[in-house]
């Protein structure tokens, strides 16, 4: 009996170890594959011509990715500028102001928001936002503003729930200490709680950026997909993700390599974001 138990335990342990290694193997496979495929292009096209070339025209073998990189960055920046303050306000409301019951309803709503498929967001963008943006800002309605708006709602749950976690991990004794010194609630939040949660909030925003830059379907539906460096915010752009998704089904040869290279750039960017978040947290452990 005991012996049987022991080998059973061993088997369980093995199983879990295998499952854990599978994630690492999966990650390595992706990195190796994308790196290998993503650098093939650079045998034929100069890396700098790819990264800084202003013309993306696969039909005439022009693979300047700058318009797409700029498109991704601008749309993401817009989304984060809109979403981060709002998310932080919501997080403050949830942890510092709302009664528990109300907070729980809102948290549920935010979870639901996070669970909605991105194609639905794209759909809502087309039906609701595109006409509104067209009216207010002119142009076709498809473009940077609409994409940023859609993305800002999509990353709101990410930033909000991570920021909320950061705020609620601030010990209450700081709050009591501040109030007992004669702070108002706002002074307490601004001078004590927010600074204490600063690193967590910054990480939340960076992870929001990562989520925004990788989002594909909803962006693809509302961004216009014109691979040109934009001159104003009501213009359509294309993003790295939207171009990969649109072109991958028919691309071949260099065009296909170029799409892999875009994927490679995305992968590097998201790894950078994770590294920054790690760095931010590591710093915080050293301090406290």
């Amino acid at each position, binding site marked *: 009996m005991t012996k049987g138990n022991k080998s059973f335990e061993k088997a369980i342990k093995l199983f879990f170890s295998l499952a854990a290694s599978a994630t690492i193997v999966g990650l390595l496979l992706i990195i190796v594959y994308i790196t290998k495929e993503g650098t093939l292009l650079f045998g034929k096209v100069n890396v700098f011509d790819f990264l800084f070339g202003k013309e993306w025209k696969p039909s005439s073998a022009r693979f300047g990715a700058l318009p797409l990189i700029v498109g991704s960055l601008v749309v993401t920046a817009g989304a984060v500028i809109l979403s981060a303050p709002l998310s932080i306000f919501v997080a403050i409301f949830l942890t510092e102001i709302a009664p528990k019951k109300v907070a729980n309803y809102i948290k549920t709503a935010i979870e639901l928001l996070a669970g909605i498929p991105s194609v639905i967001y794209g759909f809502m963008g087309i039906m609701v936002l595109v006409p509104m943006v067209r009216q207010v800002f002119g142009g076709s309605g498809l473009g940077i503003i609409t994409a940023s708006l859609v993305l800002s709602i999509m990353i709101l749950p990410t930033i909000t729930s991570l920021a909320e976690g950061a705020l609620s991990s601030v010990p209450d004794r700081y709050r009591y200490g501040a109030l007992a*010194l004669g702070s108002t609630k706002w002074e307490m939040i601004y001078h*004590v709680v927010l600074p204490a949660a600063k690193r967590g909030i910054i990480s939340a925003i960076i992870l929001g950026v990562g989520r925004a830059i990788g989002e594909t379907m909803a962006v693809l539906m509302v961004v216009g997909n014109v691979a040109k460096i934009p001159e104003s915010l009501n213009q359509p752009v294309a993003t790295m993700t939207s171009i990969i998704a649109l072109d991958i089904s028919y691309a071949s040869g260099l065009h296909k390599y170029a799409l892999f290279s875009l994927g490679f750039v995305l992968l590097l960017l998201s790894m950078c974001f994770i590294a920054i978040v790690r760095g931010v947290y590591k710093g915080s452990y050293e301090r406290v």
Partner: protein
Amino acid sequence: MNIKIKENAFEVRNLNLWYGKHKALEDITIDIVKNAITAIIGPSGCGKSTFLRCLNRMNDLIDGIRIEGKVYFEGKNIYDEGTDVVLLRKRVGMIFQQPNPFPMSIYDNVAFGPRLHGIRDRNRLDEIVKDSLEKASLWKEVKNKLNESALSLSGGQQQRLAIARVLAVEPEVILMDEPCSALDPASTQRIEDLMVELKANYTIVIVTHNMQQAARVSDFTAFLLAEENEPAKLIEYGETGQIFTNPKDIRTENYITGRFG
């Protein structure tokens, strides 16, 4: 005995307090004498902290709390509508059981209150920080590392920093909730010495379950007791010498001689 008219900092009248349905304090009436140290003693869980928090309205933060009765501070009932609670807490400072320095520099911790109350001038702040740290007898130990994190200090130093932080807002009263319970004997000694120094200029109310401490430092002692399933009542209150040598109530005697609680 020298004749001296005692002024009261607080006059608590028929104070009752409920946490939801649970009644925690019953009909507490007590005068807290100005520029003296008043110790609140009693078994753990009897409501000492609860009572203390009534004096600077920190209980307001607790959901479902209900308070009846009056607490006069310098002649005004602090539970009257229209009381400026923020100002009250500036005038009635509080030291907590667990040292709670903010995660910022030693300097910023002490300057926190003054900045809050509008002092921006760097020289003035430097002065206040130095002065408060000196009063809290911490200056010598930290004067060369004011910009280091307050979290790097020892527990005893952190508690003196908390006192400096409170002194920096120039309160009239300092409430202390078992300020030494997390500290070693040497740090405890320093805080007790400090309290005695401070009472010339401040009214101090200290909660403690350490009877020797109450006997050593306080001028007046109040004994709170919550008998089985009952809310806490003020059993006895008087000069510390009298309470410890000649208690009038048998329950006080039992408690201070260690027979229960």
